[in-house]
């Protein structure tokens, strides 16, 4: 019994470095953030103010909407592309996959720059639409531009995750379903998507979290874009409203975490285990 407790003690001792790092870089800053968030004029009621104040609430809602839309669009695009790439052999396939993964290396600023080159005032889309309809279509400096940038940024890693998962699907499962009379669409719904579910959830979660918190692209496109990271930046640097900035940061983290947890629970037990 004594030897056992000594072992336990040693094990705890071995955990200590990890514990210190966890405390120093996660718990302490988070606690500090929470405390600062409550140091404003209205104290901890500042947290409630965020949810009532129309400006902050609008920012929060539009950020959530943007992240959700980005996630849905990315998953749709990536699943289609990933399944196609896994199931079809054609010349140049390897090169295409390599090119698809290129945006992984770009920082948010570059992504923003590319969105401007495509959909900005001097952009390609503007030129084409002007030639065709006489009106210039410009959407780079808005939510639509940000949405495009985030999707562009998220598709590569999602495609890779889905391809890895799709390669492991047993083709016999699909053949068995077809032999039982299932149409292509049924096979997709009953066999392929359930098989890809863990990958879709993992990739979707990363995509959602990235879209909630990314800053560089938004900052490059326009300072007026009303997403939470931009609001936090404005409050912090321009207004020196540190308490509100901290409270917003804390809420951003909590809401993202809650949204992911909700998605996990909603999609069943296997997912909670996978997460």
């Amino acid at each position, binding site marked *: 019994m004594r030897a056992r407790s000594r072992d336990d003690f040693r094990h705890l001792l071995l955990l200590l470095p990890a514990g210190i790092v966890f405390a120093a870089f996660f718990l302490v800053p988070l606690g500090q953030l929470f405390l600062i968030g409550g140091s404003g004029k209205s104290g901890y009621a500042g947290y409630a103010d965020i949810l009532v104040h129309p400006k902050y609430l609008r920012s929060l809602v539009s950020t959530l909407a943007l992240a959700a839309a980005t996630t849905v669009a990315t998953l749709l695009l990536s699943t289609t592309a990933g399944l196609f790439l896994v199931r079809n052999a054609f010349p140049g396939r390897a090169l295409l996959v390599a090119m698809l993964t290129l945006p992984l290396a770009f920082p948010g600023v570059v992504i923003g720059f590319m969105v401007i080159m495509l959909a900005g005032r001097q952009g390609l889309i503007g030129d084409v639409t002007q030639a065709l309809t006489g009106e210039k279509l410009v959407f780079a400096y808005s939510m639509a531009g940000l949405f495009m940038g985030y999707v562009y940024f998220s598709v590569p890693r999602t495609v890779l995750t889905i391809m890895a998962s799709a390669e492991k699907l*047993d083709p*016999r*499962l699909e*053949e*068995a*379903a*077809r*032999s*039982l*009379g*299932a*149409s292509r669409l*049924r096979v997709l719904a*009953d*066999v392929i998507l*359930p*098989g890809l*579910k863990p990958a879709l959830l993992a990739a979707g979660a990363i995509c959602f979290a990235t879209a909630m918190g990314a800053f560089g692209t938004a900052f490059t496109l326009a300072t007026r874009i009303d997403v939470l990271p931009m609001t936090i930046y404005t409050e912090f640097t321009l207004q020196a409203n540190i308490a509100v900035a901290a409270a917003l940061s804390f809420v951003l983290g909590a809401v993202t975490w809650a949204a992911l947890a909700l998605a996990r629970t909603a999609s069943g037990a296997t997912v909670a285990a996978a997460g």
Partner: protein
Amino acid sequence: MTEVARSVAIKLRSCSKTFPDGTKALQPLDLDVGAGETLVILGPSGCGKTTTLRIIAGLDEPDPGGKVLFDGEDVTPVPIERRDVGIVFQSYALFPNMSVRENVAYGLRVRRRPAAEQRSRADEMLAMMRIEALADRRIDQLSGGQRQRVALARALAIRPRALLLDEPLTALDAKLRETLRVEIDGLLRRVGITAIYVTHDQAEAMALGDRIVVMEHGRVAQIGSPREIYRAPKSRFVADFIGTMNKLPGRAEAGRFVTAAGSIPWSREAGAAEAAFRPEDARIVPAGPDALRATVTTSFFLGDRTRLVLDVAGTAVTVDSSERAAWTRGEAVHLAVPPQALIDLGDRA
């Protein structure tokens, strides 16, 4: 017993298969399977047996010109979704996101049958496979044998026109394979469904098949009942692939087969020949005019019989004897083979 299947006669007409890389997986093949018959396609890997099954199933298309007929109806352009065949794979291919009952009912769900009918049909199939207690289990909670029973129940639940089995027992261990083989045999007889069973295991083929098709390099080597295939193999390949076959070189002349170790009676046209026979057809006899001289190389006592490996003028010959005698290495013996057990594998090359 409720109706389980609608059995069709299946015909293949000049079905060949060339893969995109140019490999000829199947030479033009004609095949007739009677309604309710169990046909086993037997052969080593790469002989075209699975390709044949996939063409019948509609998973692969034959090269242009090939035709698949179900009861005379040309189903070649009919995709597998509408061909109404049940398939059982070696890897079971059960849907992991569904329970056992949901797996079995899936074909009916796809056909939009009422929920009550789906359930009763699924339970009926599970009872037939004697796994009704597993209905609500998840697939990952089942053993290999149980999974293959679920796969059979699922394939039969849609009242298929034929049941196609692709090495269904290969993934199981030896003992379970034996049990399930007996069970499948009983099931196929009871249900009376047209069944095509692909395997590389000759014991499975012998036990299950009404007829066996032995395939080699994308061609049919021989079609016949298990007895015909075993007793009268038409080629060296078939003789070698099924059971143990002894082959003795020699000459046929004047109603006898003459070897360096003596001669035995055999009525065959004169010429250099190779006589083949099964180990159980040869007997150890006292010295005499119709026996071959041999030396014992090894003897294995197997309980019900003794397996002897003999040296007959330099050729190794396997003989099974059920006599209560013991032989020692190096012992000189005499070997008799009745003429009707001798198989002519053609002139020596």
